[in-house]
Structure formats: structure tokens, C-alpha cells
């Protein structure tokens, strides 16, 4: 375990990964990590537009995990009633740089029953031009809340609009209840 950690770090570095987190995520953590990523990119003299877009992708993807991850630590009834403890969602966030582009790669567990709908939605976005994405974004923004979606499902469209190439995704079936959802966006 002790000497494996260096190999793990080396492997991350070789893949251009400069930030990697796996575990319970919170809004506070998002704010601090986001600030550090902006700082790091400024030091690397990335343009303010690139920093803005990467930060935006990081926020949308991380909030997606916070809102929708099927892997959650739930408080007991006592904890939620007496100490007002909320649940915590888990997921993985990776930020890296490869072939002249920054990217955000994230993953979280989802319930199998939403996989087909989510896949359809993402394929639709993959095949849209920037102009079509803009129209779709505006259309969705005008419509009210979309079932269990907190932001009219705008997050994915926003990601697709910002990314330099179509968003990539994958679903890996884990068991009868869950799949692991992976999403990658590049800027």
C-alpha cells in the first residue's frame, strides 16, 4: 500500500491528471476545489476564457454528482431530526490536460432505471451542432422544472455547449440495481 501510492501518482501524472478526488462530495468542497483549480490554471497562464469554461464544467459535473449520485451516505432518522445532518453523495472527479486540452472526467453510480433515458439524452446532445445546442438550451431554460431535475436538465446542455468536442460518456453495469456513469468533457 505504501509504495503503491507513488506508482498511483506517477500513473496519474503520466496521463496528464493533475487533480483527482474520489469520495463524498459537498458544496463546500466544490467551492474550495474550484478555487484551487482556477489558481492552478492561472499559474499555467491559461486564458481567462479557458479558466472560466473549465471552472464551469467542473461545477456542473460536480453538482451533478451531488444531486444525482446513487451512492449516498444517509443520516439515521435521529441524526437528521436532532442534528439536522444531511446525506452525502459520493463520486469521482478527475481534471487533467492532454493533447493541448483541459478536460473534466467524472463518475458516479446511477440507478439502472434511469440509464436508458440518460443515454438517449446524451446521444441527442452529442449529435447536435453548436447552433442546435443553443436553441435547445434556450428552449429547455424556458420550460419549467423537468421531473427530478433541479436545473431543467440544463447542466448537460451547458456542458455540451462549452466543450470543444462532443461530450463522451459510458455506462458500466455493476449489479441489478446500479450502473457506473462516466462523463468526459474537454475544453
Amino acid at each position, binding site marked *: 500500500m505504501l509504495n503503491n501510492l507513488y506508482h498511483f501518482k506517477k500513473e496519474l501524472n503520466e496521463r496528464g491528471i493533475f487533480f483527482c478526488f474520489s469520495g463524498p462530495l459537498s458544496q463546500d468542497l466544490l467551492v474550495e476545489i474550484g478555487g484551487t483549480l482556477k489558481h492552478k490554471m492561472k499559474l499555467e497562464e491559461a486564458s481567462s476564457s479557458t479558466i472560466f469554461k473549465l471552472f464551469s464544467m467542473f461545477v456542473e459535473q460536480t453538482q451533478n454528482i451531488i444531486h444525482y449520485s446513487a451512492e449516498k451516505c444517509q443520516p439515521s432518522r435521529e441524526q437528521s431530526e436532532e442534528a439536522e445532518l444531511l446525506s452525502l453523495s459520493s463520486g469521482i472527479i478527475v481534471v487533467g490536460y492532454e493533447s493541448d486540452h483541459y478536460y473534466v472526467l467524472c463518475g458516479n453510480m446511477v440507478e439502472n432505471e434511469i440509464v436508458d433515458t440518460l443515454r438517449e439524452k446524451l446521444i441527442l446532445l452529442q449529435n447536435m451542432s453548436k447552433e442546435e445546442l443553443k436553441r435547445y438550451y434556450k428552449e429547455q431554460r424556458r420550460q419549467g422544472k423537468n421531473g427530478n431535475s433541479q*436545473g431543467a436538465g440544463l447542466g448537460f446542455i451547458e456542458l455540451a455547449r462549452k466543450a470543444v468536442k462532443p461530450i463522451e460518456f459510458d455506462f458500466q453495469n455493476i449489479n441489478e440495481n446500479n450502473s457506473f456513469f462516466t462523463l468526459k468533457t474537454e475544453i
Partner: protein
Amino acid sequence: MDSLKIKATKCTPEVTFNAENNILEIKGDSYPENITDFFSSVFTWLEEYLGELKNQVFTINIELNYFNSSSSKLLLDIFERLEEEVEKFDKKIIVNWIYDAEHDNIEEYGEEFKEDLNSLTFNLVQK
């Protein structure tokens, strides 16, 4: 109408209303975990204010560095609510969308809001 003052946090904007000049300012970043919770107090205030608003000009200055997609939805809801007041009651409402010259992303967001609005005066203002 009382003045309104909500202090900024790392992920929510400062919201202030100055009753002397009828200017509402929204300034900072907006990407809280639950945007509806944050904006509900602003909406409550706004409804009350619009009920009292007569002939005076109501100005809203928005100067955001970053906002997430759910904030974007909430902003459009606010603009549409204001537009309704303009169209139904001929109220004088001006929105100034203020952006930094270096920040073309924020300028673009402003342009896109403007494209979606008809009767509300929506100015893009470079700092």
C-alpha cells in the same frame, strides 16, 4: 419599501436594494447547491416591491462573474416576471447586464438573455 441586503458568500451573490434611488444590485458568483432556496427570498421581496412600484424607474444592475446553469434558469424567471410588469402595467424597468471587457463568456450570456426578451429594457454594459 425597505432596503434589502443579502451578503455575498463564496457561491452566492450580494443582493442589495437601495430604496433612495430604486436600484437593485446583484453582484458576485452564483452557483449554490440549491439555487431555489437562495432566490426564494429575493423573489418574495421582488413581488412585494413590484406591487408597490408606480411611476418611478426601477433599475436592476447585474454584475456576475460566474453563474451555473440552474442560476441561469432563475435569472430568466426574474426577467420574464419583470417583462410581465412592463407589458401589463407599462412599468419602467431597466436591466443593466454589466460585464468585464475580458469576460466574453458573460457578455455572450447577456446577449442570449436579451435575444429571449421583448419588451424589457435590457442593456449590455461593459465595465
